[in-house]
């Protein structure tokens, strides 16, 4: 199986280049991460992130043939040759497939991604009905891999000001939590033409999300909530 992998070490390379790699035997059920690890044994200067290898942690997001995926949950058998592996688009490259995620995480921090509950704390748990709790399904599972945000054309156009699907999904996760009391502040944070309203429903985020989440729907819900509260 033929691969073409993005290589760039600013320390030694003037420009990025694509390097060819060849995988002799592909066993059934082999994942892209297995292939990358194999290449790393051949050429130890190849650099990429990885941790759990099971799709829980979100460390190994890369772009494969134009689509953002997690390397550890992508079967080699579904990929078209030559497999082009490049870093997540739109973020500065530190080296090879490793991008600088600071911009992404600062957008995550910008939505105040934590529960704010101003009512006095009970000695036991705050009650939440199974229905209210079910509202959090589809948003708290996000693993912050940045596949969605970096695939979003609107975010590509306004990476500094549009918060992007991942951060907005988290905004919705807390807006929709029955225990959270900061709805108004959160909506205020998202006001203005850029932070929320650059979404044009292209739905790349939904198509690439490795956890099958739906940020587009969450963005729509935030807009409706905002509409309701501003009327």
């Amino acid at each position: 199986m033929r691969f073409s992998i993005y290589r760039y070490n600013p320390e030694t390379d003037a420009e990025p280049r694509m390097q060819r790699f060849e995988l002799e035997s592909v066993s059934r059920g082999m994942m892209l991460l297995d292939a990358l690890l194999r290449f790393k044994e051949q050429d130890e200067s190849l650099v990429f992130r990885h941790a759990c290898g099971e799709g829980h942690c979100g460390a190994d997001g890369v772009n494969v043939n134009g689509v953002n995926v997690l390397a550890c949950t992508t079967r080699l058998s579904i990929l078209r040759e030559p497999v082009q592996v490049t870093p997540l688009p739109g973020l500065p490259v530190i080296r090879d497939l490793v991008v600088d995620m600071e911009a992404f995480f600062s957008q995550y921090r910008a939505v105040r991604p934590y529960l704010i509950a101003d009512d006095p704390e009970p000695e036991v748990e705050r009650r939440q009905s199974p229905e209210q709790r079910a509202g959090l399904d589809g948003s708290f599972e996000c693993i912050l891999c940045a596949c969605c945000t970096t695939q979003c054309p609107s975010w590509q156009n306004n990476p500094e000001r549009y918060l992007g699907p991942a951060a907005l999904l988290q905004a919705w996760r807390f807006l929709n939590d029955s225990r959270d009391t900061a709805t108004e502040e959160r909506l205020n944070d998202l006001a203005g033409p850029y932070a929320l309203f650059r979404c044009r429903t292209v739905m790349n985020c939904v198509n690439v999300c490795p956890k099958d989440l739906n940020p587009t729907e969450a963005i729509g819900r935030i807009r409706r909530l905002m509409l309701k509260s501003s009327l």
Partner: protein
Amino acid sequence: MVAVRGHGKVYNGPCSEYQNLFMGRYTSVMPARERNKAHLLIGHRPPRPWLSAASLLSSTQRWAGLFLALSTPYFLYSFDLSLRSEAGFTQVLQWVQSLWGRLWTLACVWAFAAHLAAGLRLLLGDLGLGLDREMARRSAWAANLFPWFVVLALLIGWR
């Protein structure tokens, strides 16, 4: 300010206050041109941008909208001319019925239908309808095909 590493240079990254995104404190991470350089510089064909039905529809809608917006003065001028005098009316009618005029009308109808179909899909989405992955894919295909059907219908009607 936090120095953001990347691409061999140091950029001024966002500072630690994120409360107000619009007062300019959330400053540029990387200029757009620089950002894309990393990919453009590959001495190789860059990966083909990924095109889904929905993203195709979205750009169609944008370009069709721009086309219609730019042709607004033309419509207004024709409308004005046709009302102003008998001669003006004939002039407009002749243009519309000419071959080029018909082609132009066809283009406008296509653009309007495309913009309309995509817009309708967006409106449904705003109501929370059809946003799951499968439905969205199907509705995007339908909306992509819609303007062509309209144009086809118009052509049949003219014959």
